[in-house]
């Protein structure tokens, strides 16, 4: 993907790959709408932890690949995830020092922005507005954030990615 900087960047890519798997793995019909925005969540973490390594460019590429994988309009996730990366990098100094309980709300807003952009682009392309369940994923992402944060932080520390 992006030029290999020094250190153990592959851990970042591996976690993002995990995000792809979690997005693609089939779930029962009723659970599909509750699937969190895995890739966005993982991207937010890395943008927050290593803003000098992970940025808008990676967000764009990750989003583009996600578009191809999920068969959406080419550029829909690319736009969403590059904006997510941008906002996270702008906020990272402030959010990083917050306690997890408080971080959760910022994450919610960022995830909501991603959903909103996706809705906007599908709407512009003429697809019908989805049901209200569409908005439940940011809430689930917000509830999952503490676990994702701790998991990824421990991974990062174990493999000394910095």
């Amino acid at each position, binding site marked *: 993907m992006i030029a290999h900087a020094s250190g153990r960047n592959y851990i970042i890519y591996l976690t993002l790959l995990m995000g792809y798997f979690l997005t693609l793995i089939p779930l029962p019909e009723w659970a*599909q709408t509750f699937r969190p925005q895995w890739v966005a969540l993982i991207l937010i973490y890395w943008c927050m932890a290593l803003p000098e390594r992970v940025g808008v460019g990676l967000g764009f590429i990750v989003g583009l690949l996600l578009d191809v994988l999920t068969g959406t309009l080419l550029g*829909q996730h*690319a736009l969403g995830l590059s904006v997510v990366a941008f906002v996270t990098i702008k906020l990272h100094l402030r959010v990083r020092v917050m306690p997890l309980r408080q971080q959760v709300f910022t994450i919610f807003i960022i995830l909501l922005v991603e959903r909103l952009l996706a809705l906007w682009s599908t709407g512009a392309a003429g697809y019908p507005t989805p049901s209200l369940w*569409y908005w439940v994923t940011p809430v689930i992402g917000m509830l999952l954030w503490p676990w994702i944060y701790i998991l990824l932080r421990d991974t990062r520390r174990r493999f000394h990615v910095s």
Partner: protein
Amino acid sequence: MVAGLLSISLMVLDHRFNTLESLRSTLSVVLYPIQYLASLPTLLSESASEAITSRDQLEEEREKLHADNLQLLARLQKFEALEAENMRLRALLDSSFKVGDRVLIAELMAVEQDPFRQVVLINKGKTSGLFEGQPVLDANAVVGQVTHINPITASVLLITDATHALPVQVNRNGLRTIALGTGLINQLELPHLPNNADIEVGDLLVTSGLGGRFPPGYPVAQVVAVEREPGRPFASVVAETTAHLDRVREVLLVWTLTPDRPQAVPAAEETAVTHSDVQRAPEANE
């Protein structure tokens, strides 16, 4: 900023023009291992459950298949006579007719797509000679049509997707209309029928072939609700698809063969089945 502009222009390009198909298909080949790995758990659990099926179950299934086969063969006997008769009558009328259909079996990949759209991924692609807009059926009825073709996979838009519309006719009386997808699984709506239209609950809808995409005469759906409100100009009619779109595992890709312009069909495909004995009513007669 740049990324934002780039993605917006990408979206416009992808939506308005077809210039990005090559980019999409190239990337899809690169990403195929990810999709394959993601479908692996399902594949493994399926093969595991196959491996531990009991002898009783297998025998039961064999019995059932045997009975089905007998029935189908019996029906086919009548079919051949009818086909010959149909050909003769058509020759009298001097109308064009379809020689038959060629089908190829494809399997659905256990990979999730956008949950708010009714799209599935199948394991056949450009290498199997698919074309865009190709009709996709299952054993019972119409499933959808091919929208994106990648070298080894293709995505199929189901007829229930909210952006899909399918020209149909009522099998009982030939009433023609359009069936729109609702975005809900297994449900179609027929919004363009006037209040006095002759349509009843239980009517079978078949493809009319008018759009030119789907061969005529394939079952699509069954009407489950008709509501006629005197104040409204149109009746609201809801139909349920004959194909079980939520449970389908294998689909058939169809090439319609016409005597004048045979479609380009891959030369030899192991799983391909030709059933030229299937005769369909021609579109020209409508």
